[in-house]
């Protein structure tokens, strides 16, 4: 289960990150971040944040590139990237729906919202619909307990949600894919 609030970048690496890093502007931006941290090994998580913002998700070749640049063992980079739920090693859908599963949201029925979207998309929390349109995620309390249950639709926090309302919204995404 991955949790995030920020909307993912919709641009997955074209043809993967395997291509010529030098020809890809995003690599330059990543390079700038690493340089700003003086290629310090302990900046790994910061660099992973940047990489995910730039590329949408963390492909293995991208992780290898980071490992080599920061001189961190590959297994450690992979270990860190998979320890934190924020990082995704798989591409996310065009749209994301993040359902807060904090206590306040839970007691106000967030689980039912999750079930409704799981049923609608035929996916489990943490998965993306086969057509790549919608990713369903749950979050560990986004701190919007006052307006529980909270659902983050493409990065916008919405409060006091109901299963029906979220289903309607997601149906729109699934319908035309835009």
């Amino acid at each position: 289960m991955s949790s995030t609030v920020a909307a993912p970048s919709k641009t997955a690496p074209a043809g993967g990150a395997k291509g010529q890093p030098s020809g890809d502007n995003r690599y330059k931006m990543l390079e700038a971040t690493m340089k700003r941290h003086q290629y310090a090994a302990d900046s790994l998580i910061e660099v992973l944040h940047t990489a995910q913002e730039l590329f949408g998700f963390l492909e293995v070749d991208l992780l290898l590139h980071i490992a080599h640049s920061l001189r961190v063992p590959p297994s450690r980079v992979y270990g860190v990237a998979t320890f934190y739920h924020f990082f995704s090693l798989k591409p996310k859908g065009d749209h994301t729906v993040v359902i807060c599963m904090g206590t306040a949201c839970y007691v106000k029925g967030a689980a039912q919202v999750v079930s409704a979207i799981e049923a609608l998309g035929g996916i489990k929390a943490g998965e993306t619909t086969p057509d790549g349109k919608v990713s369903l995620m749950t979050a560990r309390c986004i701190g919007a307990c006052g307006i529980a249950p909270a659902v983050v639709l493409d990065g916008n926090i919405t409060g006091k949600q109901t299963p029906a309302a979220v289903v309607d919204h997601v149906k729109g995404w699934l319908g035309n894919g835009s």
Partner: protein
Amino acid sequence: MDLNDLLEIAEKENASAKPIRLRCCTAAGCLSQQGDAVKNALQQAVADADMSDRVEVIGVGCMGLCSAGPLVKVDPDGALFEQVQPQQCASIIASLNGGGPAEASVGSDTIPFFSKQHPIVLENSGRINPERIESYIAAGGYQALYHSLREMAPTDVVEEISKSGLRGRGGAGFPTGLKWATVAKMTAERKYIVCNADEGDPGAFMDRSVLESDPHRVLEGMAIAAYAVGATQGFVYVRGEYPLAIARLKTAIQQARRMGLLGTQIFESPFDFRVDLRIGAGAFVCGEETALLRSIEGQRGTPRPRPPFPAQSGLWGYPTLINNVETFANIAPIVTKGSEWFAGIGTEKSKGTKVFALAGKITNTGLIEVPMGTPLRTIVEEMGGGVPNGKVKAVQTGGPSGGCIPAAHLDTPVDYESLAKLGSIMGSGGMIVMDQSDNMVGVAKFFMEFCMDESCGKCVPCRAGTAQIHKILTKVTDGLATSADLDTLRSLCEMVKSASLCGLGQSAPNPVLSTLRYYPDEYQACIDGGATAEASA
């Protein structure tokens, strides 16, 4: 930069204030309910009404009553508008101009929710513009730092904090002054200050609100701490789930640096202090201090045994002072108003105030700050307004590490010791109110699933134990458990509590143990009567 410059900025800021100010909440709760659209609509309405010369619309931080958001408050007359819709804004502005009563629903700041509060940490929240350092300075900001640097020796600062009786607001309640003194005593070529803003307890959003509403307060507290213990570098480790808090912190750090309130030779003293942000990446265990340190070092956030404590050997092996957001937010007022003032608030062993996040089945959800020792009943029933159309069954405090306090114990004063006696903990301040429809076994299972998913996997009791506890609880809720399973559950909980490496595992069984203690009937009912629906709305 010196005191005069500060005062000058404050004066200028106050002077530029227009006679009528509309404060719009732009913290996450209200923003998610079109708070920014309301603010824009108000600004438009002011322009349309050609009142820009005497009316201004400012974005402020959290006003607390999230359930009534978006909130707009009018200064100086104090009118409070609740659940404001953008289309009502013209009417509100018109009412200021003598156009009759506004269409928006009017709230009152004299209701117990507000009147029973004692804001120290939240004193600026909802008042100042969190995106302007001038606004903070106008409210007296950074004077405590100046006072410390220029008029106090580091040991005096530590002494003052010790005398205040302030205890860590992150949950465990360790005396802050003692922690500072430990770090101050260490001789090392480098020391670090870390602000734990990895507020992971589901149901807790105090720190988020403070960071979104008054970020400079936290930075100032960190700077004072750095001076007191001899550190030159600080980190704020903030949850990745709080993008707005991150943005405001970034702005705040930049502004403070530009004004010379962070960086080198602060207030023209030899004191240097740099603050950097570290963004968490979704791991509850990183709220545990040794795990947090590992995470700042760019590693997997797995805790390690203590001792050595971070105060002795923290970041990269150097002495490190870790306090949470609310603790740092208390520092400037203590320095300004003195330890005696602070020690006069609260109870004998728990001084000062505590911010709580009220959520769940309660009328007034939001943030409150009350003196330590305030009875739970006052908070839940008077201030929170109780359960809408129902009765309080239990109050869950301390998140996944805490317990469920049954309604029978509502008269308990909220302080560290009293809550511990009831099998719960103060925690960081989340309070989830449950009503009669909530099944306590389901609640226990919910928390155990949380702990199981968030276990880092390093130590066996937590990694394998939480999974087994969850499995047994699932058997219970599915109606497949026997009394023998409950015995296994109990013994396993005791072991996980005693044998786990860090606080996550040590406290993970609390929700199960406290519900077993107060609601044995509900467990028994599952065993006798088969499957039971889980807690639901």
